[in-house]
């Protein structure tokens, strides 16, 4: 493993106990330090299972038949407890309301919850809570009861509660699906900034326009298999439409223009690129 590899997945297969179908089939890939990797694929493709495997919930929380392995920062996830891995890799789930501990009365306590569990001293906790509150922009909410927050706010607190363990990798499993557009943007902005500050991000997302805009690389999954892992421009060149994966509208627009002989460049990934290419096409 090179110094810049933070996650290495090697021939990973997994079948949940009591199920006939393999949830993950022989996956191999690596994630580099500071990378923004998006995982896409239709429902049931195995995206969540992969996330669970990255943070070690597979195989410690879910039993089943596992082959191959995942190593995070050089440490095999098997044989390391999820709790211990929490300081290396953190996971944020879809439903914000299942991500609060239900044991705390204020946002600051909620943020500190993980630190309490690992027995951090109190002044260390206070320092980190203050720092994290700034990062996730909940400074004004610290004394509020987590249950009084909006979905977007809770999801930010959930990210904060994960970050407070100082993981260098953040895994987000459709963490904006249940939020409205504004809440979703709030959360996503934070993730983007964290990535800029050096945190490695692995994100499952259905919003293809966003994936195209933000990902360094895109991993396409279907039926438990890894179909491709490449830059968005390569992925959205039209090859993967048939695998139940949506294309960003901008890329489809580019493809349609090419078909009509109006465009000949690479896949279009952002609104700006699409507008410019479109304008150029009608300015002829």
């Amino acid at each position, binding site marked *: 493993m090179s110094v810049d590899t933070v996650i290495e997945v090697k021939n990973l297969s997994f079948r949940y106990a009591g199920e006939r179908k393999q949830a993950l089939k022989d996956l191999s890939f690596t994630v580099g330090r500071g990378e923004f990797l998006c995982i896409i694929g239709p429902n049931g493709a195995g995206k969540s299972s992969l996330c*669970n495997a990255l*943070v070690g*919930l597979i195989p*410690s*929380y879910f039993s089943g038949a596992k082959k191959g392995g995942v190593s995070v920062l050089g440490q095999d996830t098997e044989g390391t*407890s*999820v*709790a*211990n891995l*929490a*300081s290396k890799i*953190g*996971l944020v*789930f879809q*439903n*914000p*309301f*299942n*991500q*609060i*501990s*239900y*044991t*705390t*009365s204020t946002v*600051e*306590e909620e943020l*500190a*919850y*993980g*630190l*309490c*569990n*690992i*027995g*951090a*001293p*109190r002044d260390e*906790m*206070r320092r980190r*809570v203050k720092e994290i509150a700034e990062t996730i922009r909940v400074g004004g909410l610290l004394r509020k*009861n987590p*249950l*009084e*927050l*909006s*979905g977007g706010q809770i999801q930010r607190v*959930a990210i904060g*509660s*994960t970050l407070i*363990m100082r993981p260098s990798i953040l895994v987000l499993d459709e963490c904006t699906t*249940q*939020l*409205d557009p504004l*809440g979703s943007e709030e959360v996503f902005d934070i993730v983007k900034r964290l990535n800029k500050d050096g945190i490695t991000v692995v994100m499952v997302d259905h919003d293809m326009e966003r994936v195209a805009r933000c990902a360094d690389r895109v991993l396409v999954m279907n039926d438990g298999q890894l179909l491709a892992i490449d830059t968005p421009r390569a992925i959205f060149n039209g090859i993967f439409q048939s695998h139940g994966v949506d294309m960003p509208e901008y890329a489809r627009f580019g493809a349609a223009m090419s078909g009509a002989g109006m465009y000949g460049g690479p896949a279009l990934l952002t609104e700006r690129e699409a507008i410019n290419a479109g304008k150029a096409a009608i300015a002829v």
Partner: protein
Amino acid sequence: MSKQNKIKTKKTSSYIPLDSPIDRMHPMVKIYGVLCLGIGCAAFPFLWLSYAVVAFLFCVAWRAKLLGRFSKFIIAFAVPITCMLLIIQGLYSPKNVTVLADFGFARLGLEGVVYAFKTVGTLLVFLGGFYLMTTTTYPGKLVTAMQDAGLNSKAGYLVLASLNVVPQIQRRIAVIQEAQTARGVEVEGTMSTRFKAFLPIIGPTVMSSLVDVQERGMTLETRGFGVKDVRPTSFVALYLTPGEKAAKKVLVAFLIVCVLFAVFWALRPVLGLGV
């Protein structure tokens, strides 16, 4: 985000957040209160003590700004249980010697009546105290206090989770009931319609609770819950004020006096002390 989630935000336990001296009090003092007063009254041979303590609890409820709710709780509980015990013990207790009233089919005996009132009094002290403790103490604080006193963190979580589960299920039921009425299940009307309406609600309630429990379990795990060989710390520091320390001592003294008196009273014939 769904309505279901909005509902979830309302309340998670029987705790009612009100700013009062009772609310601010260290949870351990309240636990001591419930146990010492309850056991003391149960041990004490005369029934007046329980009622004196119940009167004291009313004062506490007033200080906690909960007098109305507390009265309702006590009445709703005390009236039916007293009637029931009066009938059972008053009419049929084998200890009955002194007849208070003769109804023909049965006789009301003094001993049974006293026993009934004694039992009701003790129950009121326990339940009233417990009610006040849970309504005035944020569950998180309660568990922190218990963990400070040496409670295992998993047990602590269990306490909190059980405190949370009932109101949560109630909220889920409200949503599920809406979904069922929209499918033609009549929920208004006679008892039997209501009962029939209840059936379709059970399945989804249990299922969704199970799903929630699984996801929350995963969350806890990723937050380092249950990490081995580490003594968990807490974010909020709970300190006993000198007044609270004194209160704890008074409560323990109360318990000791009650128990000693009970022992003395029970041994009276042996010691040869007549009345």
